[in-house]
């Protein structure tokens, strides 16, 4: 297989606060191929957004810092880029869409201004040409009356419309990778469907790889090829969506899936919740970070930090000491039988 588009290796991003060092991302490695759709799932504080910010190099010292690791994008380590080269990458080759469309656009400039700014910067075109490209971009995200929209200010648009503008802005320069950080969390479910549909359709058309960061397993199941689950700053499990949803290898993934109420369930059953709450990133537990909440923890879990290793089907990896001895899938079935 060809070289991956993005390869992250042992990335660690720490923040220093008054209370101590927050290890927001603590040693993660993964690859992303061209045109792949990768989902990164995790609960709040799992480090999924910080991962994205680290790749874009949007973490600013002294508050936070990428302490070790490499981020290889198209064969070169982004962490070694100087600021000017990085500016070419941002928005040009890697675009990013954020969670809250209500605040992500500058309130004092028109939609047109903000779109054309990106286009002129990365495509080195004249104002006139940029205007035409921006117009097409607005039409591409299916906003009616593109010409008049160019003149409107962000506050005159609804949340869904603004997120469309963000998508238009992100894709206007045909990036190789689009990072979408909880792009629909702030939106209603019908709007979410519109936006996800549109974003992935456009990304496919352009051959853009998508890295979708979300807490919603449903969205991942519907829109991604591969998925990785983050917990306490690390990746606990990765695989294709089919593998992960059908046969989770890590007790956290297993618990998370069991915690979900499903709309297609006929019978009311009890949810299998994960007890306790996520760990403080300042005071991480020894050994496996999930250990204090894990039903299957044994002595070794407190002593050694589990690394990702093959588990389950080929291509599936899990960071659990007991991944190969536990048969979580059968526990699911057993429960259903007893219930």
């Amino acid at each position, binding site marked *: 297989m060809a070289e991956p588009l993005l390869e992250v290796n042992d990335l660690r991003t720490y923040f220093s606060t008054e*209370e101590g060092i927050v290890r927001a991302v603590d040693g993660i490695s993964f690859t992303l191929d061209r045109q792949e759709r990768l989902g990164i799932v995790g609960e709040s504080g799992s480090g999924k957004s910080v991962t994205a910010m680290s790749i874009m190099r949007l973490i600013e010292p002294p508050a936070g810092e990428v302490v070790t690791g490499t981020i290889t994008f198209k064969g070169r380590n982004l962490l070694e880029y100087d600021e000017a080269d990085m500016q070419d990458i941002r928005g040009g080759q890697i675009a990013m869409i954020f969670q809250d469309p209500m605040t992500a656009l500058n309130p004092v400039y028109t939609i047109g201004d903000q779109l054309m700014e990106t286009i002129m910067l990365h495509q080195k075109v004249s104002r006139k040409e940029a205007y035409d490209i921006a117009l097409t971009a607005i039409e591409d995200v299916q906003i009616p009356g593109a010409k008049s929209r160019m003149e409107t200010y962000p506050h005159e648009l609804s949340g869904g419309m603004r997120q469309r503008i963000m998508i238009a802005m992100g894709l206007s320069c045909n990036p190789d990778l689009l990072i979408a950080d909880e792009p629909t969390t702030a939106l209603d479910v019908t709007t979410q469907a519109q936006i996800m549909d549109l974003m992935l359709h456009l990304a496919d058309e352009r051959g853009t790889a998508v890295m979708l960061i979300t807490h919603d397993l449903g969205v991942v199941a519907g829109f991604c090829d591969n998925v990785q689950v983050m917990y306490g700053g690390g990746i606990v499990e990765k695989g294709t969506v089919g593998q992960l949803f059908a046969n989770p290898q890590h007790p956290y993934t297993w618990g998370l899936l069991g915690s979900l109420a499903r709309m297609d369930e006929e019978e009311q059953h009890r949810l299998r919740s994960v007890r*306790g*709450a996520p*760990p403080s990133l300042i005071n991480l537990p020894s050994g496996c970070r999930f250990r*204090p*909440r894990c039903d299957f923890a044994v002595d070794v879990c407190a002593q050694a930090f589990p690394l990702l290793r093959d588990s389950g089907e080929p291509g599936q990896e899990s960071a659990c000491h007991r991944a190969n001895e536990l048969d979580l899938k059968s526990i699911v079935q057993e429960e259903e039988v007893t219930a």
Partner: protein
Amino acid sequence: MTDTRGAGERLEELDAVEGLAVEPITQWDLFWTRLRRHRLAMVAAGVLTFMVLLVVLAPLLPFEDPTQRLLDDTGRTLRNIGPRGGILFGTDELGRDVLSRVVYGGRASLIVGGVTGALVCTMGTLVGSIAGYYPGPVDQSLMRFTDLVLGLPLLPVAIVVGRILPDVEWLPSWVGDGPIGIALLLGFLSWGGLARIVRAEFLSLREKEFVEAARAAGANDRRIVFRHILPNAISPIIVQTTLIVGIAIIVEAALSFLGFGIPPPTPTWGGIVSEGGRIAVRGFWWQLVFGGTALVVTVLSINFLGDGLRDALDPTQTIERK
């Protein structure tokens, strides 16, 4: 019995999992820990305490009478004597002890600051709470009135009143000539800002879910205001009040400086600076420097303390357990 203990043990385990420490921290602890971290505020608090003690206890301390001239052995008045042993801050043009005048001058300033602060705190909170809790015509008319008071330019009006007060015959002399009159005046002119802030706090707090929860539980207005809204609005009230105390001290000093404040021979910081400025041209710097420093250090301390309180009272700040 065994069952209960079992449950308790499980709960403790749960606490450990959820990272809850054993000892609770009270709001007071939190407040103190945060305030102590603000070093300037702590220094300021110390300075202010010293000032207040000095001013309150002045008659018991071995200070000269601030209105009597000092004489040398031959009976001559000691005019414009520079600082030296025994006369630490020197004497003024009339031979009075500057140290004692600065200390006694602090009385007027601190009384004006304190009384104005109390007045503003009471009136602002009262008007703001009523307006914020009763929307509609009550709110509208109170806020129009507040706008009106806020629209009055403080200094020009204060100067007129300060000038006129001693001339108003039917006023008792403690209002006309003393710091109380000035404090009342400044208080009535400056409560508007706090009223607006308190109203805004009320408007936002009354929409908060914990207030709705109290109402759903059947709590009456009094309980909602005094148990739920006011305790959460306390931070801006205290911060704004300290700000006003500083401003009141400055304005009182300015009035005295212009000659429209507390009439001589009662010493005031504004008066000392005014007179000190005139003679400093001739090289007699001590009155200007000591009077001005006392004034600036006091106001500065109040402002630093206010800044520290703002940080310490902010409920959004968290603190990690040690």
